[in-house]
């Protein structure tokens, strides 16, 4: 499943115009008194290709993020996705069919009430495990495809409409504990699709060991009420470019896990050397059905998949992503080949005041 498939809808240009209008409102109300608090535009733009079982898709995509602070305690932030998907016409037809999607990934206001308490309101990313709210930006992910289990626990759209409290509960030199709790209302709005539900996440981080352990739970409160459980472990050894990340999710009808390891070859001449810019990546994942009800976005049968990637970090915040995956299931094994290039941008929304 491509990352672009989440929370997006085919639509006209009207939502884009509304988004731009919202962005202007945020920018106009933002604080410009500080020389360091100029509103920013960040995100990624890329071009992906994916060949799954012999069928190729081409996907130009842009994910702009807008952030603007107001005063000492408030931050507005929003991310949107604009994409166009092209695929060759099947059969004996020539040419390509295409579709486009525009969607708000999130738009939220943050009020930092105290050093340990931040109140979030609006349309926010569901804090379940780590992938949904930390690794989905195209300039962060090591693979084009999201994990097979991503749809567990994120209440369908990946975003909630309502409120969230989050923050740092305990901060010591040897460990930190942070938390997030949210409540989402039901919304059938085209741009703010959300399910009613609530839940939370807690993370223990050991900075000396660079080890992160977390637990997540949420509950769908509409239709058939279902519980979702999650656990994750990340290990990024100090002073190395190695990262090991893993997640486990369990839903009412299915469960699964993924484990991802990547290592940038900076030991060979430094991170900016020709070799040091390479980044081999490996991900293994399995999903297991607990019953025959397929309502959670996971494959309809038990599935295993191994992804082998080789990324290259070009200068000027540009990455090339390549990968080969083999997916195994009783319905048939198949290959997935993917290549893409992503550019990460980060600049002021306008020229700020000089210090």
């Amino acid at each position: 499943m491509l990352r672009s498939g989440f929370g997006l809808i085919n639509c006209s240009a009207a939502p884009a115009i509304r988004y731009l209008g919202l962005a202007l409102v945020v920018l106009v109300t933002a604080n410009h008194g500080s020389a360091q608090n100029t509103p920013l535009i960040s995100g990624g733009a890329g071009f992906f290709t994916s060949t799954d079982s012999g069928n190729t898709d081409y996907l130009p995509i842009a994910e702009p993020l807008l952030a603007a602070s107001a005063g000492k305690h408030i931050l507005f932030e929003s991310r949107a996705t604009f994409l166009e998907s092209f695929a060759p016409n099947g059969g004996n037809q020539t040419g390509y069919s295409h579709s486009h999607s525009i969607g708000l990934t999130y738009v939220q206001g943050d009020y930092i009430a105290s050093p340990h308490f931040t109140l979030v309101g609006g349309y926010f990313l569901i804090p379940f495990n780590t992938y949904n709210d930390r690794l989905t930006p195209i300039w962060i992910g090591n693979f084009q495809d999201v994990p097979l289990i991503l749809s567990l626990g994120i209440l369908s759209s990946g975003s909630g409409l309502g409120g969230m409290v989050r923050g740092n509960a305990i901060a010591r030199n040897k460990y930190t504990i942070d938390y997030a709790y949210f409540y989402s209302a039901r919304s059938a709005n085209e741009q703010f699709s959300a399910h009613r539900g609530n839940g939370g996440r807690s993370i223990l981080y050991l900075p000396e060991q660079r080890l992160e352990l977390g637990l997540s739970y949420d509950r769908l409160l509409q239709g058939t009420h279902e519980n979702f459980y999650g656990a994750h472990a990340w290990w990024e050894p100090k002073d190395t470019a190695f990262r090991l990340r893993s997640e486990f999710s369990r839903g009412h009808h299915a469960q699964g896990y993924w484990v991802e390891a990547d290592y940038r070859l900076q030991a060979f001449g430094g991170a900016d050397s020709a070799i040091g810019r390479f980044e081999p990546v490996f991900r293994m994942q399995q999903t297991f059905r607990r019953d025959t009800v397929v309502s959670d976005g996971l494959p309809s049968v038990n599935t295993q998949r191994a992804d082998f990637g080789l990324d290259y970090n070009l200068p000027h915040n540009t990455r090339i992503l390549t990968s080969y995956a083999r997916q195994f299931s009783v319905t048939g094994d198949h290959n997935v080949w993917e290549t893409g290039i992503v550019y990460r941008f980060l600049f002021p929304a306008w020229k700020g005041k000089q210090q």
Partner: protein
Amino acid sequence: MNAKHLVFGTLVLASASVFAVATQQESVPQTKPYKDPARNQSGQSQNDGERVFKQNCSRCHTAPEGFSPSISGTIVRHMRVRASLSQHDEEALLHFFNP
């Protein structure tokens, strides 16, 4: 995928872990997001900021190659919410961005 595939995958991950730990280096940041690296090593608060950056921001993503100082406050505010930074960490990170 059967048991031998799982064993193979586990061996690959274990090998990668051992290799990474075996090639541990002295502190070698992958990239510098801003300004002169030598300046970043002067002063306790700047060391604090560098530590905060490595322990929090770098957990999810690499550093950008550079950005305007005029947005450093907004970046830090954004990171404070996203990474649940403490107030002290926010201040150290801002000082690291603007030594």
